[in-house]
């Protein structure tokens, strides 16, 4: 049995299928970073660190005449979103109920997807992760309140990337507030702003919970690396007569390999 201890949970195989399907359905639209950065893995639960290919010289060695250096690695972070479900609801699911209350699972899925996006785009200091926006070598562009000016700002970001030799296509991660504003806006003549922005970047426009403002980043590959040990999984923690405590978990880290390959658009 894996460390997820699913076999110890008072949940039937059909019940686990329902929970896995629900988690997958809720996570997939929210995992914005995975649509825009390179993905490596899953390398398994025992994978503990990403190779940086760098060393730190050691001043002292046990024996004179021996040189030494210590490898530098980027440790993976274990992220877990716990939640609790009613055992009565799970029994109803086994009976064929189609309206089982899985709200706590949905909220946990949203939390962990947001955490992954935030780590990738804005960093996670305690986990040693620098985010795409914060590591950018370019000055952030202020988006402002006027949506009609968004194409100009996004085109400006693309021009900044081209100027330093970072080729396209480009992707655009939009924080939820900005995404909603873009969806609601049509330019003069009724042309949807969303389509105009897509034409400018020539790549995906992604709804990105956890992102503040927006980020334009190259999609040519090799610039941003999300390394996953254990991919998102459902696990079991404990249960009592009425509830079962579960969690969604993953292990990952993230590296910005080319700080010039992204431009932040701040609110």
């Amino acid at each position: 049995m894996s460390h997820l201890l699913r076999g110890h949970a008072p949940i039937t195989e059909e019940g686990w299928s329902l929970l896995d399907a629900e988690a997958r359905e809720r996570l997939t639209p929210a995992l914005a970073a995975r649509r825009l950065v390179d993905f490596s893995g899953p390398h398994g639960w025992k994978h503990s660190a990403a190779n940086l290919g760098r060393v730190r010289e050691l001043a002292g060695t046990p024996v004179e005449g021996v040189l030494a250096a210590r490898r530098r690695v980027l440790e993976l972070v274990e992220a877990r979103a716990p939640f609790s479900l009613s055992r009565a609801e799970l029994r109803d699911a086994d009976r064929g109920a189609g309206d089982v209350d899985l709200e706590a699972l949905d909220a946990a899925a949203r939390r962990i997807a947001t955490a992954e996006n935030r780590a990738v785009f804005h960093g996670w200091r305690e986990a040693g992760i620098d985010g795409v926006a914060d590591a950018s070598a370019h000055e952030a562009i202020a988006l402002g309140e006027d949506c009609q000016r968004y194409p100009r700002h996004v085109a400006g970001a693309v021009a900044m990337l081209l100027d330093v030799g970072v080729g396209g296509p480009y992707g655009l991660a939009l924080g939820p507030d900005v995404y909603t504003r873009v969806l609601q806006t049509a330019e003069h003549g009724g042309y949807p702003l969303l389509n105009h922005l897509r034409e400018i970047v020539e790549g995906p426009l992604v709804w990105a919970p956890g992102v503040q403002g927006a980020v334009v980043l190259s999609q040519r590959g090799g610039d941003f690396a999300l390394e996953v040990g254990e991919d998102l999984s459902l696990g079991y923690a404990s249960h009592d007569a009425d509830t079962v405590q579960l969690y969604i978990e993953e292990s990952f880290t993230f590296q910005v390999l080319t700080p010039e390959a992204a431009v932040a658009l701040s609110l």
Partner: protein
Amino acid sequence: MCHDARVGFDQYHEPPDELPSETRTFARLCASLTEEAEAIGWYEQRLAIESDREARAVMRDALGEEFKHFSMDLEFLLRRSPLWRQIAQGILFREGDIVEHGEESEEQAVEGAAAEGAAVSGSASLGIGSLKGATP
């Protein structure tokens, strides 16, 4: 008219009622992948003997559709089977000896999974992986 109750379900080799819904979905996509591969083979044969230019253009367009369907089916299956995905990553889109890559990739992936204590035939993960190029 009397219908054979099993008609339309011959992609299953075990009683469908006993199979988890995810396994049934996986089997459906495996069957779909097979059908797309067959269609690609058929169109290649038809194109090889068809002399009418317009008909060839239509069939070439249809062949492109089959390529797309096959690739989508494959990507779906690889996302749901991390070990398969890992082995495929060592083989697909690489220059060089295909058989050699296959042997190396299988060995590394299976040994790696065994070393991690993971079940070789599947994984408890949700199998989401990369979403680059996925439909929103």
